[in-house]
């Protein structure tokens, strides 16, 4: 096969994840040496038509137009990798899924009649088959490079889906929950960030979404016993991966409770 043709697509998102690709300053030449980036609007207005060997998709589907566009992306791509919490879980904008959408629009926009949008924000995999989902808000650029490299070699990316605690302990951090009483989602959150927040004595916000075997109910029971209030638990579970199960189900158990 010739050089792989890479495309980067943006859906509803903040651009932070695709920026991770541009942020690979030391590796950019390697990337350019390994693949032809032929569709990447954040980097260049020069766009070549498909088909593409690998499409990297950022963002969630929030409009009828995007719901159609993602079908096109799948049609012109051999492989599709979604990156970031928006693309893999619907993102923070999925909070609309649990609210009155029309009322939200009236509250935000002076002239909501000009807005054409879906009532929900959904992950890409809810619309098309996805070959690999890379988690994070934002994603880790080292993991992105591993995913691209693994794709080029036709093997499984070395990305683990266990808890963030395992990264935290490997770093030698002191547990912020046990030693400081700080609420932390690390025990139920997918690894990948290197336990960034606990390293700086903050509880984990769950940016990488639920781990493969996450059991937030058991964690929440303990946090309640430690004196964490239900509204705080609701907010903790209703962030960038608000729509991801089992975070969502557990959050709903504490919605409106006090």
């Amino acid at each position, binding site marked *: 096969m010739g050089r792989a043709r890479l495309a980067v697509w943006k859906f509803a998102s903040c651009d932070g994840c695709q920026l991770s690709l541009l942020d690979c300053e030391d590796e950019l030449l390697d990337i350019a040496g390994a693949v032809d980036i032929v569709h990447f609007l954040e980097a260049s207005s020069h766009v070549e038509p498909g088909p593409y060997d690998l499409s990297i998709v950022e963002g969630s589907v929030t409009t009828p137009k995007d719901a159609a566009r993602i079908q096109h992306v799948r049609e012109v791509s051999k492989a599709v990798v979604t990156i970031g919490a928006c693309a893999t879980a619907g993102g923070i904008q999925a909070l609309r899924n649990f609210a009155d959408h029309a009322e939200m629009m009236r509250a935000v926009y002076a002239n909501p009649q000009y807005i054409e949008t879906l009532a929900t924000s959904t992950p890409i995999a809810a619309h098309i088959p996805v070959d690999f989902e890379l988690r994070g808000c934002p994603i880790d650029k080292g993991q992105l490079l591993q995913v691209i490299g693994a794709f080029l070699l036709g093997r499984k990316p070395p990305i683990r889906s266990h808890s963030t605690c395992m990264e935290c302990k490997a770093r030698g951090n002191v547990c912020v929950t046990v030693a400081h009483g700080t609420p932390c989602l690390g025990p139920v959150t997918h690894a990948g960030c290197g336990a960034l927040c606990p390293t700086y004595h903050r509880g984990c916000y769950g940016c990488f979404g639920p781990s493969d*075997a996450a059991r937030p109910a058991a964690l929440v029971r303990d946090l309640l016993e430690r004196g964490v209030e239900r509204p705080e638990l609701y907010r903790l579970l209703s962030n960038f991966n608000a729509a991801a199960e089992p975070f969502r189900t557990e959050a709903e158990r504490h919605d409106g409770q006090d």
Partner: protein
Amino acid sequence: MQCSPGSQSVLDAGGFERLLALLRSDGFVLVGPIARDGAIQLSAITGIEDLPRGVGDEQSPGRYRLRPREDDALFGWAVPSQPWKKQFLPSRLDLVHIRRKGSALEVEPAAAEANPIAIIGARPCEVAAMRVQDGVLRDGPHPDSDYAARREAAFVLAVNCGTPSGTCFCVSMDTGPRAKAGFDLAATELMEPNHRFLIEVGSDAGARVLERVAATPATDGDIAAAADLVAGAAQKMGRALDNKGLTERLLGNLEHPRWDDVAERCVGCGNCTLACPTCFCTNVEDSSNLGGDVATRTRTWDSCFALDFAYIHGGSVRPTLRARYRQWLTHKLATWVEQFGTSGCVGCGRCITWCPVGIDLTVEAGAVGEARG
């Protein structure tokens, strides 16, 4: 004075400092306890001034706090937050780099660690854990050369325990509070009437270092005071584990309802295994550069609580938390004995303290096999 394995001498605080300085001048990197981020942690240290003076700890299931002591003891706490594990079994270790050169592959072993370490202040339970690890990683049919090299180069200065915590149960596991073997030197810190250390020699290497420090011979009073301290510690165990018939009870009750009960409380995070000084499981992963001409094989810590740990073709053989918790507990306390000749547990209590939801191994092991009441 002349020192030999078994002999006992006394160092005052200045002598202890000289001992550390000598180890440094012999080329050891000192690793010992420090108080940081609200916990006793293990860190590179330069001398006695880095040690946690006048600091104690409180440990209970899922809870750890430092507290001030009324004296200036340097080892007045139970066990540090981390085990002595990554010093010999690093959490991440590159094993080999492979480069493509034309049609050939060039295999280059990853570089080994440079300076040997001197372990300052490992508790008897932790020294026992090192010996358990030796049995698994060094003395078995497939020795781990990296582990063996790091272990061989290390100097072990143990410190006997006078201050067990609420989650300690070394007495049940017969690993403390006094170190019996596996050290070069073992100290007992005495505070009254003056701050001093009774030093027991455990090896020729320990004897050679101690002879150069100008220790004074121990008096009967020093020896009695040290014996009183550890005897007192043995009375202050926060926990106990009933070992009688434990293997049979655990393995004979693999379908006991307690496994369902604990699986309902467990978060599956893996903290117990990573805080454990004997859990040794690792994963080997391959990564490559974008050009596909350099590959690296890396060993990382793993945990039997990870869902993909037991993944084989078609899925995980332990898909439920019940299965994973049962695997861990029965291996640690029962099948380990059959496999390696010792229990996998040394009673340090870390899996209890550092479980974010406070699951207590001693309680769970006790409850499995009990009639439902």
